[in-house]
């Protein structure tokens, strides 16, 4: 579904991504972990070309994301992206945030879009807050609306960039629950997170990144318990 082939990226003299390779097959859930600045957010952003790359390729469903003539807008409809800072549109209500894409891109009629949007909000448990403005919602609620906004476009893949890092601890649970449900229902996902418990429950594979490269990968249980992965152990110890 998504393939990284030797991806390189520089910010000026600093190398943000160094020869990253890997594959995410349909239905798989990969979790990216690592210290700040290791490039995990950068990597996930290259999938929808929010970041450009200088070397290698990123392929989504066989299509090279950076190739000429690629309809990047169409691609972005197929790949959902949830940001750390939610990035809801503050001038639109919760349901408005969702119907925007449905009416303007999927060309749905207003009534149909509303119905669909309400269904998505219900799925994340926020049907009652449909008409609220984002400014009135709590962090956890905003993130769930952001997730619903992405899901409404019927994506084949969902990307999460530290979805709970900006939340107060009490609200982390509700967002993780929503994401977990997606995983259970078979959504292909890449999730950048610090929540190791979440990784353990949901991930098929965990990639540990450091200084722009994937230095260790494996099944969650293996990585966390096994002593064959010293750098990850050190990271988990200092982090936990």
């Amino acid at each position, binding site marked *: 579904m998504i393939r990284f082939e030797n991806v390189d990226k520089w910010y000026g003299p600093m190398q943000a991504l160094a020869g990253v390779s890997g594959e995410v097959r349909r239905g798989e859930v990969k979790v990216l972990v690592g210290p700040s600045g290791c490039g995990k957010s950068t990597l996930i952003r290259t999938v929808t070309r929010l970041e450009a790359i200088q070397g290698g390729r990123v392929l989504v469903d066989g299509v090279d994301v950076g190739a000429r003539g690629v309809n990047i*807008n169409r691609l972005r409809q197929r790949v959902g992206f949830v940001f750390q800072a939610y990035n*809801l549109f503050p001038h639109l209500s919760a349901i408005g945030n969702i119907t*925007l894409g449905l009416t303007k891109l999927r060309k749905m009629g207003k009534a149909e879009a509303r119905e669909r949007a309400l269904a998505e909000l219900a799925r994340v448990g926020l049907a009652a807050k449909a008409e609220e403005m984002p400014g009135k919602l709590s962090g956890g609620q905003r993130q769930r609306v952001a997730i619903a906004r992405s899901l409404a*476009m019927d994506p084949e893949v969902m990307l999460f960039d530290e979805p709970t890092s900006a939340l107060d601890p009490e609200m982390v649970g509700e967002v993780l629950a929503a994401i977990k449900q997606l995983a259970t229902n078979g959504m292909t996902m890449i999730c950048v997170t610090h929540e190791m418990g979440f990784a353990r429950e949901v991930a098929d594979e965990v990639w540990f990144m450091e200084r722009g490269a994937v230095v260790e990968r494996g099944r969650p249980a293996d990585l966390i318990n096994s002593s064959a992965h010293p750098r990850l152990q050190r990271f988990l110890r200092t982090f936990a």
Partner: protein
Amino acid sequence: MGYIFDLRGVLSGQYFDWFMIGLAVTIALTCAAWCLAMTMGIILTLIRMIPFRPFEWFVALYVEYHRNVPLLVQIFVWYFGVPSLLPRPARQWINGHHGEFLLATIALGLAAAAYVAEDIRSGIRSIPKAQNEAARSIGLGYLGAMGYVVLPQAIRIAVPPLINQTLLLFKNTSLAMAIGVGELTYRTREVESYTFKTFEAFAVATAIYLAISFGIMACGAYAGRRLKLENA
């Protein structure tokens, strides 16, 4: 000093009419110049968005000229200078069709447009890049992201400064008196020179200016409150 403050002399009969005509001209000038300023300001903003260097320089030069040259001098350039460059028939047409009012409108409108363009630009720049990213991430193109997400928010932010520009424009109409436009200040001086009641005449004009200015300021404050969005 034995000076008796008597508003009646100034507010009676024809003098009252003069004040009203002056006020009408001031308002007409403000509105005409405002329309020109908004139109030109939007055009400048659009030109600026085109990723072509010379266009950016043009807008930058336009803005810097209108911000660094005194407005009175700009009015003189338009009123004394430009007609001398035009062919005779054009000059005669201008003279026959309220030339002073026309040229004052152009000068005031184009000058205000520079500030309008800057206010809109500030509004757009103040929208976090992340909003554009989020809009693009659901698949909206450049125009869609601009039109449905960035601009609606930018305009809300730009409204209070734009109302402030309207206030400035209103006050700047008084400069048109220097080229003979019969707006409020000009008429006030006329009343003053006919009645010799300087204090009363200027008091009336001051009251009128303040009333309208405070009205505009109040609109600005109200708009600022109503349009405030909490961050999401």
